[in-house]
């Protein structure tokens, strides 16, 4: 399906270049680095690239809006750009885009958060005296490369191109986690992130292979079997077993990228990267790629009930599992990392419960408030001289008032405080779970409570209580400079307001409209329905608002409990006393890293050593077997080695000729 001619305006052809601008800016920085000139301008190039991308992203977002009331959904649009490589059988893999409402939302999220983070980084990557950190240019080049990769991921129009974006964002994640490569922890974390993701990618690749095998018999001449449009057109023709297998394999990739059980282990360690990276890659964009992919493959997953069941339960268990670990950490960024895993798990539950629009809605609101939280944590870290352990400081509201206010907004949004963006989207997911799977609903509700609790435990330990500073912070810590405050402020505005795109204003009784005014499923949902997404239609104006009150209460009680126990930033860890050994288990993160190492890594390495020993024995054994030959041959060769090249060549040729003749007369009867 090609784009209709009348819509293919010059604006659109400019729009097609969207991912290339950040790539170009990264290349420019590379040239600056190689030539050694204008190095101080690295951030200008990448900000410009991100800005162009953000403008074009916003234009696309508007362009992709459904016409009229939104019920005239037109479906996705494929745009072929160039061929890439051939798969035989007349099948091609090309560079092509697939554009629909889901693409529009992702473009908006990626480009806007990226722009904020790039601007913030200008301040963050300098010390208090304005000196650029070592590797400043490299950092911005990688950011530019990441934005390009992420845009390719969301614009891709076929599964191989999706895989391309998927791997490239993984590469950028690797490079940026390992940004402080001299630190052994950072280098190890980078490697771990890449490898754990590769486990998922193994499944993802097999999913693509299997999909091709099953789809190929159904494709018509001229269709490429791995294009989204073709797959979605023929998805219904696959058998249930086929779709289930394909979806489960694809979901393996999602488990890696979106940090779900059991492939989540890389995400907490990824916090070794600079904080802006954590905000952009490990909270707002890259880690949501798995959610995006499952939502994108809606037409496949909709026919795969078993796979959806797995998605639901992986999500539900992951949500509460991550929350328990978040309750017992001291590293601010790790707490946020576990909360990211937990919130991504919410999105998977929504996907599993057949509400991909709610999953994408949560993805969208989460991007703003979680990016804000990470940037806020970065601001704390920047002021504290790179100390981020909550035991090292407290009472920072007096020295970092701006950061504290912005963090409060982010924490409230994450905790699901009423009327902030996280509240609206999380409630929808609870609603979907309630309709499909009651045990899962209970788990999620409990997790909501824990989320509010651990978020504010972190907040109080950091900003409340008596002022204590680590030695590394110096006597007078500085609050964030304007270049960092501006992007955080804009994200905070998003954290407050973004949710209103997804709620409907409906005056009614407080039982069917929250606070007389609000109902779920607003304009945002119409927007994302415009495309490949498969959603169970929701009747507007008939919903119940009761759940809104329940989840509001749960969030507020969680915050209140945290206030009761941690409001004065106590140093003796009340939870440790209350939960005892359980708390220690959470604190040690269930010893999963150690278990992985003992069960997978060490045995594999032992196998490698065994093979190596066998290999060496094989070499020596073989030599012994033909024992005398080398010596005899060596004697001959010593003659040849005296510079008599010609004679050797002649000997070989003659020998072959003699052999040929011998064979001719001996070999034929």
């Amino acid at each position, binding site marked *: 399906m090609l784009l209709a001619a009348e819509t293919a305006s010059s604006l659109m052809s400019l729009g097609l270049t969207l991912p290339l601008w950040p790539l170009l800016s990264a290349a420019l920085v590379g040239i600056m680095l190689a030539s050694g000139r204008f190095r101080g301008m690295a951030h200008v190039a990448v900000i410009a690239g991100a800005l162009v991308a953000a403008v074009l992203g916003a234009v696309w977002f508007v362009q992709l809006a459904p016409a009229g009331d939104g019920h005239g959904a037109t479906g996705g649009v494929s745009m072929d750009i160039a061929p890439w490589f051939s798969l035989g059988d007349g099948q091609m893999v090309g560079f092509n885009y697939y554009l629909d409402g889901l693409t529009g939302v992702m473009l908006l999220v990626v480009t806007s958060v990226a722009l904020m983070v790039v601007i913030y980084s200008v301040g963050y990557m300098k010390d208090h005296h304005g000196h650029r950190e070592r590797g400043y240019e490299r950092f911005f080049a990688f950011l530019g490369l990441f934005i390009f990769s992420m845009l390719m991921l969301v614009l891709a129009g076929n599964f191989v191109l999706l895989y391309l974006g998927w791997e490239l964002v993984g590469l950028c994640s690797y490079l940026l986690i390992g940004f402080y490569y001299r630190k052994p922890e950072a*280098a190890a974390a980078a490697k771990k992130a890449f490898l754990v993701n590769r486990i998922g990618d193994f499944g993802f690749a097999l999913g693509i292979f299997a999909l091709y095998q099953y789809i190929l018999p159904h494709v018509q001449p001229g269709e490429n079997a791995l294009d989204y449009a073709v797959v979605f057109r023929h998805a219904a023709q696959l058998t249930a077993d086929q779709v289930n297998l394909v979806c489960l394999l694809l979901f393996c990739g999602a488990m890696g990228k979106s940090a779900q059980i059991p492939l989540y282990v890389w995400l907490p360690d990824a916090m070794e990267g600079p904080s802006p990276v954590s905000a952009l890659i490990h909270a707002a964009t890259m880690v949501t790629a798995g959610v995006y992919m499952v939502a994108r493959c809606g037409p496949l997953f909709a026919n795969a009930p078993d796979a959806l069941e797995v998605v639901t339960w992986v999500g539900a268990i992951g949500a509460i599992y991550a929350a328990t670990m978040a309750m017992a950490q001291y590293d601010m960024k790790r707490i946020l990392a576990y909360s990211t895993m937990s919130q991504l798990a919410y999105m998977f539950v929504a996907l599993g419960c057949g509400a991909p629009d709610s999953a994408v809605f949560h993805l969208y609101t989460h991007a703003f408030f979680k990016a804000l939280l990470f940037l806020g944590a970065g601001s704390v870290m920047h002021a504290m001289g790179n100390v981020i352990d909550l035991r090292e400081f407290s009472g920072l509201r007096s020295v970092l008032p701006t950061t504290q206010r912005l963090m409060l907004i982010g924490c409230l949004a994450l905790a699901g405080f009423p009327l902030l963006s996280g509240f609206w989207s999380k409630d929808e997911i609870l609603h979907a779970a309630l309709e499909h799977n009651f045990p899962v609903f209970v788990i999620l509700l409990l997790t909501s409570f824990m989320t509010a609790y651990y978020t504010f435990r972190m907040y109080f330990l950091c900003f409340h209580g008596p002022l204590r500073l680590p030695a590394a912070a110096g006597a007078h810590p500085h609050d964030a400079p304007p270049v960092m405050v501006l992007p955080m402020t804009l994200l905070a505005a998003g954290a407050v307001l973004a949710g209103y795109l997804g709620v409907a204003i409906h005056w009614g009784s407080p039982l069917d409209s929250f606070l007389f005014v609000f109902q779920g499923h607003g304009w945002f949902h119409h927007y994302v329905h415009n495309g490949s997404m498969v959603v169970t239609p929701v009747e507007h104006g008939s919903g119940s608002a009761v759940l809104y009150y329940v989840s509001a209460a749960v969030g507020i009680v969680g915050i209140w409990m945290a206030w009761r126990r941690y409001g004065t930033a106590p140093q003796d860890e009340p939870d440790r006393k209350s939960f005892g050994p359980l708390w220690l288990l959470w604190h040690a993160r269930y010893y999963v890293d150690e278990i992985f190492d003992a069960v997978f890594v060490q045995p594999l390495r032992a196998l490698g050593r065994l093979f190596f020993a066998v290999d060496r024995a094989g070499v020596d054994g073989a030599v012994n077997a033909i024992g005398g030959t080398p010596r005899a041959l060596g004697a001959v060769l010593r003659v040849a080695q005296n510079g008599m090249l010609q004679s050797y060549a002649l000997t070989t040729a003659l020998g072959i000729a003699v052999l040929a003749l011998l064979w001719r007369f001996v070999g034929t009867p």
Partner: protein
Amino acid sequence: MEAIGLHILIFAPFAAALAIWSLPASRGDLAYRIALAVGGMVCAIGLGLWWVTTGDADALIGETRLTWVTIADTAAGAGVTIRYHVGLDAISAVLVGLTALLVPLSIACGAVSIRERATEYYAWLMVLTGAMFGVFAARDVLLFYVFFEFTLVPLYFLIGIWGGPERRYAANKFFLFTFVGSVITFAGILYLAIRAADGGAIDFDLLRLSSVSLSTAEQSLLFLALFCGFAIKVPLFPLHTWLPLAHTEAPTAGSVLLAGVLLKLGTYGFLRFSLPMTPEGAVAWAPLMGGLAICGIIYGALISWVQRDVKKLVAYSSVSHLGFCMLGMFSMMSAGLTGSVLYMVNHGINTGALFLVVGMIYDRYHTRDMDKLGGLARQMPVMSFFLIIFVLASVGLPLTNGFISEFTVLFAAYQSKVLGPAFGAMGAVGILLGAIYMLYMTGKVLFGPLNEPHGGPDLHNGRLKPDLTRREIAILAPLAALVLILGVAPKVLTNPLEPVLEARVLARVAPHVAPAAPSGRRMAALLPGAAAPEAP
């Protein structure tokens, strides 16, 4: 015009070798310059010849056909004719292009490290160059065999004289293994030629030997005979044991050409000879071949992971990588064959480049032990940049050349009717294991705190800098550029390749691939206008 170019490719290096040989031993610098000039010339010609190839399987570029040796056998009214018959189709042209690319780079990489007996060194390098072009250009099977064997000689001396501490042992091991294997291959070729002659005159024309009709049993045995020489060369697990030693002990140029070009003689042999000459045998043995390939992929990768010597790690990675190449070839699918040839080229570029980088590190620190060497990223940022690019290409990251070949090969193994999903899945384990050892190496060498042996780099009295010199950058930059170009536009290579592979190889083996299971109406569905044959 093209014919003259092809003659120059084959004979100019031999002439240069003679010229260099006759120089006094003290003129190493002049020898280097002559070799580099000839290398540059063959590079231009070789790439030019590749550029003019088309997808027409019958049109050979620069074809020349001269009778070399005729042995008349009056009694039987027959005789033996050996011809100097050369010419390039798309398959051989790709490999000629790869050789042409790597030759000047491998000459240039010795500029600092080769100080002893330099004239001899460059003479042998030139001999090797001529022989490598000869192998790929040959259209007469016996001529192929002569060049095939002849490559052993210069490499034997390159390893044995300029290699590492265990060079003698490595050179003998290398020579014996490959020589013994190829003798059996030779017997197979002779048998085939005699069968083709059918009592008449014997000749070794490639196309003639590729269209002999043989019984199933004959094909099966003949496949095994050809297998012996080619599988050792590839090297296919478990016949690979000569490789790590030879690779590790060889001087950098030897490792580059060994990995980049000479291993491809094995895969080229399978593709050019085994598949078209014994198609039924190849299909029958394909599952075994696929199994060995997968063993090699996993085995090589796991061993790479436990190495301390960087060069040995890269050497074992070749065992793993060539497994992918063989897996694709024996899928008997168009995508697999194309992917396999792409894999040959890409492995040549990527592994060649890795050996070059390792050599550059070794020139400075005189060690390759990763326990003594680490955290070089800050010391050598330019080197790190290149190393990371080649590592990424090696692990098959999209937009690098490695991705296309790895993906198509695994894809083909999965879709194959002779191999199938289990093979695809097992092979795909390699994409994880490959990343493990490569990133392990990167982490050790580049990241972490700085760890330099001997208190810092040996700069050879000012001939080197702590980071890469301009000469070294000029060596690596073209390879890095190709990594990206072939990753984005692999069609440059595959457009002429695909039709030729289909005509010369797939058309021979396809009739012997069992008809697809019920799900496989796929081919029929794809042919426009062809009615799908509904099986009753």
